[in-house]
């Protein structure tokens, strides 16, 4: 029980301190809105193309929202030494890191629903398989957060975390099938797509929203789940190696 009191309070503190601040709320709304608008205008097609862009816009909203926040909540607290206070608390490192990342996961999930709400005004969403969309959003939020966590614990400065994140985030827009099908990429680039976790989440979303997915959904769920576990374990081992040395 005591551990969960600590867990909930870390989560609530982070939500109040970082996520529910006006700049982040506006970031969570304006960013997905801008991406939706940009791709919609660029496509030159009618409202029927909204569904085709929705998986990519949802994913990009989650990815940028979660990874950007982790750089602050982890790296900044480590720099200011307040993270030490958490390390000294009588809770396991695993639970502590889950508490620190839960806020980002929730933030990512909320971000994903902004394009959905916008799309609801523009097109008919009745064909969407929500039973697949919801777990996919959840898993993309987790894997993006753990990816952000891994970067945040691997660097020592906030700007390094942002730079390092961008090094991966921007290529992912093109490599993970967000807006361009993986099959349209040159053959020699495709292996890169398959080693990036977002590919599998986007594939589930495409399957749930447009019915067009390139891999089996079971494989997608297993792969993204495995990436979640691996990224979290790598982050924990980095914290132990670098911060408790």
């Amino acid at each position, binding site marked *: 029980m005591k551990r969960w009191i600590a867990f909930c309070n870390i989560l609530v503190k982070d939500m109040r301190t970082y996520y529910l601040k006006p700049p982040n709320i506006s970031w969570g709304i304006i960013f997905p809105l801008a991406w939706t608008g940009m791709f919609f205008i660029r496509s030159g097609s009618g409202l029927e193309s909204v569904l085709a862009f929705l998986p990519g816009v949802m994913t990009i909203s989650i990815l940028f929202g979660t990874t950007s926040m982790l750089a602050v909540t982890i790296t900044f607290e480590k720099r200011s*030494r*307040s993270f*030490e206070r958490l390390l000294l608390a*009588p*809770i396991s490192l695993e639970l502590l890191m889950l508490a620190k990342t839960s806020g980002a996961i929730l933030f990512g999930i909320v971000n994903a629903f902004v394009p959905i709400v916008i799309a609801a005004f523009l097109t008919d969403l009745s064909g969407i398989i929500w039973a697949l969309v919801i777990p996919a959003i959840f898993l993309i939020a987790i894997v993006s957060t753990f990816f952000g966590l891994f970067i945040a614990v691997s660097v020592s400065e906030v700007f390094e975390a942002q730079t390092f994140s961008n090094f991966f985030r921007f290529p992912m827009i093109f490599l993970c099938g967000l807006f361009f099908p993986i099959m349209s990429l040159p053959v020699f680039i495709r292996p890169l797509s398959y080693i990036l976790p977002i590919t599998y989440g986007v594939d589930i979303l495409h399957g749930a929203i447009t019915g067009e997915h390139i891999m089996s959904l079971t494989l997608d769920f297993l792969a993204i789940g495995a990436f979640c576990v691996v990224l979290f374990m790598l982050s924990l081992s980095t914290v132990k190696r670098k911060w408790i040395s």
Partner: protein
Amino acid sequence: MPNIQSFNGLAMDVAGLTKRYGEVVAVNDISFQIGNGELFGFLGPNGAGKTTTINLLTGLARLDTGTINIGGINCTANPKAAQHLVGIVPDESNLYPELTGFENLCFCAALYGLRKNERQTRARELLATFSLTDVAHRKFANYSKGMKRKLTFAAGIIHQPPILFLDEPTTGIDVASARKVRQIIAALHSKGTTVFLTTHYIEEAERLCDRIAFIVNGRVIRIDHTADLLQPVKDRNILVLSISNSEPRISDEIARAFPGYQVQSTNRGEVRVESTEQIIVGPLVRFLEERGIQMTEARRQVPSLEDVFVRVTGIEAGLMKKEKEKVRGEGNL
């Protein structure tokens, strides 16, 4: 207060603690035991290994060799095992700048699993104890240095730990705040809290600690009860003379003329005369005047732990304090 298991009456048993950072041996084969309710001082200059020792004991650093037992729990393999028993006041404030004092304390209490009502009651108590009630709802970032230090101290004891680690708790804060902090340390000690105190203020260690360890270059070179440490200097008389000419040879001349006296020139234009017998000032004044040296002041000094520390470690106590204050930018004693 969380219960502390009986472990031969010991709150802490540390053996052969060693920590290397590359080629540097930060902590070198340190062993000590601390009894339940004891106030144990760890005294040494900057870089001696005091903070590294605390980090090893609290799980913020991994030891290379050695064993740690805290409150009857073997923490060697699992440093987090006894974290519920300990409170830590680090050498620098590490609370959340964007939270108020009250919120910071409630948050720290929640980390130890205290329920909402308990957290708020305890936070209010501590804010009152540390005279911070008026600024309870001010953001931590806007606190003065002294207030930050006091709130950091309060956060360390929010869960009423039976064992408390204090890393330089009075460094860099104003005299009134330092005095308050020392009063609180003494009060906690009198209520039975085991305290591990690192400090470079020798007077502070002497005033507060039951036992003291001198640590230099990562090694503990002496551990003893404060009274026992003071024993060799207790019966000595010390006279410090401020003189117009502080050439080093004057101390040799005085020593030759007064064979019972040990004489030493300090770098502050003073001569320090020490003896087991009563030091008579008149002959010394005449001796100096005959050599054209004016004595502007003669003051008797009570032998202190500083003398023991200088003797044992060879480190000038004043230099140690100055060095630390240079880092912090402010002194307080």
